[in-house]
């Protein structure tokens, strides 16, 4: 073997090993999840487990429907709250912002992303939840709560302000920087010359954004939004603090509820064998949900 080429080969081997190592790790993770969740699936049946609302410690019967819907709804709620704000931020930063303000705002957003999730959890517990209890809950139950059929969805179920809406609000703040920066990346891909030709026709900024910037960036921006929102699916500590952790009916946006991660965080330490397996099965479901969301986002972002 040529000695001169040796460093090259070593370098190649090392990088190759790192890349393959990551794949092995992921495969190992999936295999572990599958093996560990098998007892639960065998005991309750695959679809029965996914579609059952049971979470009964005494009879040792577990179903995934509540944590699953909790995860999906808390994430959707966060998206509904965060996406409009994030879109506003990203359009402002790419198209409207005076150049001097650009980097201070960008840094502020990045800093928001650097705050540990436990801090958001504590903030949610001590600041946001009392706020929701004192102001938001009475407001909604006093107004929308009086509606004939849908009113129940806005009535208060339990005092304390720890519920699905509070969890969505905390999640919204947490994903905001990611949604904003990925949406901004989408907008940044619009070629300068395309905007210039709209301005060159006498279009205003707003007209340029509507006719050229948004249609061109659309798919990349939506893909970025989905990818960033996907982070909310697996968010654990902050949600576990504020969602109320009750395996009960979800009949109001103010119901205390559960998500996959909050259940895992709360019950993993003291779980019996079959409960443990059910927790692994939940994790597997979360993993698959994440995979789905990521694939969708990547597909959209690759579209031209």
């Amino acid at each position: 073997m040529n000695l001169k080429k040796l460093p090259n080969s070593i370098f190649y081997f090392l990088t190759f090993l790192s890349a393959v190592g990551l794949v092995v790790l992921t495969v190992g993770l999936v295999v572990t999840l599958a093996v560990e969740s098998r007892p639960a699936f065998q005991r309750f049946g695959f679809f029965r487990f996914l579609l059952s609302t049971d979470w009964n410690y005494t009879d040792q019967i577990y179903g995934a429907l509540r944590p699953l819907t909790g995860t999906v709804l808390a994430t959707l709620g966060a998206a509904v709250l965060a996406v409009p704000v994030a879109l506003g931020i990203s359009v402002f930063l790419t198209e409207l912002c005076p150049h001097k303000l650009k980097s201070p705002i960008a840094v502020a957003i990045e800093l928001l992303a650097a705050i540990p999730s436990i801090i958001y959890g504590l903030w949610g517990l001590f600041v946001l939840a009392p706020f929701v209890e004192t102001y938001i809950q009475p407001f909604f139950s006093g107004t929308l709560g009086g509606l004939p059929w849908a009113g129940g969805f806005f009535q208060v179920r339990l005092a304390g302000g720890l519920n699905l809406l509070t969890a969505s609000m905390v999640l919204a703040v947490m994903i905001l920087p990611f949604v904003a920066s990925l949406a901004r990346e989408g907008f940044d891909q619009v070629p300068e010359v395309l905007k210039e030709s709209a301005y060159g026709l006498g279009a205003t900024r707003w007209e340029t954004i509507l006719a050229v910037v948004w249609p061109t960036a659309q798919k990349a921006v939506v893909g970025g939004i989905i990818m960033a929102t996907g982070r909310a699916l697996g968010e654990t500590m902050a949600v576990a603090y504020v969602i109320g952790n009750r395996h009960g009916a979800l009949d109001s946006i103010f119901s205390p509820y559960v998500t996959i991660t909050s259940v895992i965080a709360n019950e993993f330490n003291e779980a019996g064998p079959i409960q443990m397996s059910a927790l692994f099965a939940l994790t597997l479901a979360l993993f698959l949900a994440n995979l789905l969301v990521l694939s969708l986002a990547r597909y959209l972002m690759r579209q031209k």
Partner: protein
Amino acid sequence: MSHEPAEAELKDLITIEELCFFFGDNQVLKNINMPIRDKSITSLIGPSGCGKTTLLRCFNRMHDLYPNNHYEGRIRMENRNILDKGQDLIWLRSRLGMVFQKPTPFPMSIYDNIAYGLKLKKITNRSIVRDLVEKALRQANLWTEVKDRLKESALGLSGGQQQRLSIARSLAVNPLVLLFDEATSALDPISSAKIEEMMVELKKDVTMVVVTHNMQQAARISDYTALMYLGSLVEYGETNDIFTRPKMKMTEQYVAGHFG
């Protein structure tokens, strides 16, 4: 040089007076004085970095989209100085169309691309819009190629067609001037020739200012030529004079291909 010198002097549509332009502290245009004559083609030539594109982008104040630059001097058009601080840029840009090096079809149908400028001018009457779209596409020699697929996305056209579409889009709003920034340099020779042919035909309707790297193109299509070097205007004159009997030594060397 097939070009005939203009018989009578055309009137000046635009006059550039003592124009200086700065990116930050860096002066990139130095005391430019020249006219743009009505219903003619004026070429701006010169080596890369000489400031010809910068000058072109002064006419429609494109520089104003970016920070840290400023103009000095005047560009007179229709009894006003378009470099005035209070100049309405939306109005100005709808009077001076611009065509870029790369075609810039908007992500919408062929028809909507052309109608877009009309929509901005609040021209919405359907039959008027339809007529103006057809007229612009005919002017840009694109009508016969696209008349059966006006509703299709403009992104599906070939590069040359997209460039003629961009030109048609600018023509639809009936501009006073069309600014071409190396508009054929990214195209194949046949597409490029079609556009040159169209430009010569367009002269009866619109004044054109053309930035080009291609000296043969400047010689073929333009009535007047300006040679720029390092931000200054070296020589301006009728195209024939610039190419056959230049006054300046530098012009002679440049058109002979000695530098650039």
